């Protein structure tokens, strides 16, 4: 694998750009692997990457039913932050955020991490109290955040209307080191790094069955034939319930649609990420100039990857008071993704009832920011067979035992 560098660009410019290699290989599946990861989204690819990098396990296949990064990895609003209330959440999201800072250098692929700052507006007195509490919790957790005044909010994001009659801005939780990244590049970069380590990324290969014997997985059946494995990781987000069903266990997960939309591209007007949780909307501006807007989830089980018009109307209606300029903006595209929501709105990184089968799911509406940290923790779990400090609180049995990591109260909204 040739490295990407300024020198490589100069060399290829001389050679008419004929020497660029494919970023990753697309081999036919082998009969058996040490590890099979189901799902080549960000989390699956990151798991495979850290299995190779941190644990030296490279006889790995990553199976993908569609195309690489075509699920939620390519459908989110690319927000990266770690200002969570609960300690286990703050630990894994902060690990993830810190890995994002050096990810481009680590995998030799520009993921365009942009630590532009994330601002979560407090628009009710309840939110002011909640975010002050989060800022104190973050200080104890070693996550740098602060509660800022409305004047500072206006200074950081001049297009905000802080004096709205219905939703005045009373302050904000500010994480200066949060920001955005290029979602496709995260998947492509990890895929290229995995392929360079000799792992097989197999697209258009849907898992249709899980073979097990005596409480151990022996392999999977796929649309490209049966493949044997010694360990299996399920990292399929919205379809976790389907694959778990094939493996014979049930999850505390419901699949619902979450949608987002972008406006027509305009000149740079906003260089931070703003989340307005009271009105259920969050917004940033992409490098192309589009305003990227995320809304709420549907309230019912849905696998269609489609949005619905009334959610767009609700999201924009609510955001217009806070961002008056939106009223003059045309919306360009909208799309939906299927997110896996758990009972406590926290993820599951866990062993399963099958001894050599592991699952990473339940990231719900906030998975993109967690990709590197989630992969790191999942690789650790799969390599050693036991969860490390980042994953241990996120096990599947916490629902039975009442050890919730309750971020539904802390986040209050899609996160």
């Amino acid at each position, binding site marked *: 694998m040739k490295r990407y560098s300024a020198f490589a660009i100069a060399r290829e410019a001389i050679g008419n750009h004929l020497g660029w290699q494919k970023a990753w290989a697309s081999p036919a599946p082998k009969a058996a692997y040490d590890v099979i990861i189901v799902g080549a989204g960000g989390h699956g690819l990151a798991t495979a990457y850290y299995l190779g990098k941190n644990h030296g396990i490279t006889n790995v296949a990553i199976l993908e039913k569609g195309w690489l990064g075509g699920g939620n990895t390519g459908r989110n609003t690319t927000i990266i932050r770690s200002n969570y209330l609960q300690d286990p959440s703050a630990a894994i999201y902060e690990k993830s955020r810190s890995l994002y800072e050096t990810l481009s250098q680590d995998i030799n692929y520009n993921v365009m991490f942009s630590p532009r700052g994330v601002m979560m507006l407090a628009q009710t007195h309840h939110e002011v109290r909640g975010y002050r509490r989060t800022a104190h919790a973050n200080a104890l957790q070693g996550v740098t955040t602060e509660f800022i005044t409305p004047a500072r909010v206006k200074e950081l994001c001049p297009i905000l209307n802080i004096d709205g009659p219905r939703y005045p801005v009373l302050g904000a939780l500010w994480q200066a080191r949060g920001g955005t990244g290029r979602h496709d590049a995260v998947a492509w970069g990890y895929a290229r790094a995995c392929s360079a380590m000799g792992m097989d990324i197999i697209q258009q290969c849907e898992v249709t069955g899980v073979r097990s014997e005596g409480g151990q997985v022996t392999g999977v059946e796929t649309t490209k034939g049966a493949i044997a494995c010694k360990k299996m990781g399920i990292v399929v987000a919205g379809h976790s*319930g389907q694959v778990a069903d094939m493996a014979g266990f049930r999850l505390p997960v419901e699949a619902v649609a979450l949608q987002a939309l972008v406006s027509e591209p305009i000149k740079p007007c906003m260089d931070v990420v703003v989340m307005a949780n009271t009105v259920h909307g969050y917004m940033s501006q992409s490098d192309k100039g589009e305003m990227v807007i995320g809304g709420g989830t549907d309230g*019912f*089980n*849905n*696998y*269609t990857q489609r949005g*619905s*018009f009334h959610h767009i109307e609700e999201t924009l209606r609510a955001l217009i008071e806070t961002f008056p300029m939106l009223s003059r903006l045309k919306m360009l595209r909208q799309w939906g993704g299927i997110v896996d929501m758990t*009972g406590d709105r926290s993820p599951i990184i866990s062993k399963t009832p099958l001894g050599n089968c592991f699952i990473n799911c339940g990231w719900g509406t906030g998975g993109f920011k967690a990709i590197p940290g989630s992969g790191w923790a999942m690789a650790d779990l799969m390599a050693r067979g036991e969860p490390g400090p980042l994953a241990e609180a996120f096990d599947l049995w916490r629902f039975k035992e009442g050890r919730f990591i309750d971020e539904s109260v802390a986040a209050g909204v899609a996160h």
Partner: protein
Amino acid sequence: MLTLECPYCGIMADETELSPGYEAHLKRYGPGSTDAEFEAYMFARKNPKGVHFERWRHAYGCGKWFLAARCTATLEVFGTYPAQTSGPPPHIIAAIKARRPGWEAGQ
């Protein structure tokens, strides 16, 4: 936009007029039940990609809870029925089988 018929009012109600209540026909467990039974009742969900039975409330209408049979993969609605039942009635099962010949109740 999802449109469901309220079995009490008999009117077609848009999604914006209704409140979703997720999986129907869950068995409710009380004091003396095991941890596993409570977990199954409170958290474990069928979450099927296909035929699903759900609770809905006609929140901005008559206010009553009712149940719906719906496909989560296509958003097709097979029918709605009153909530005072522990399982889907025969005419709903028949409506589902007419559209999904391979489907079996209890899946």
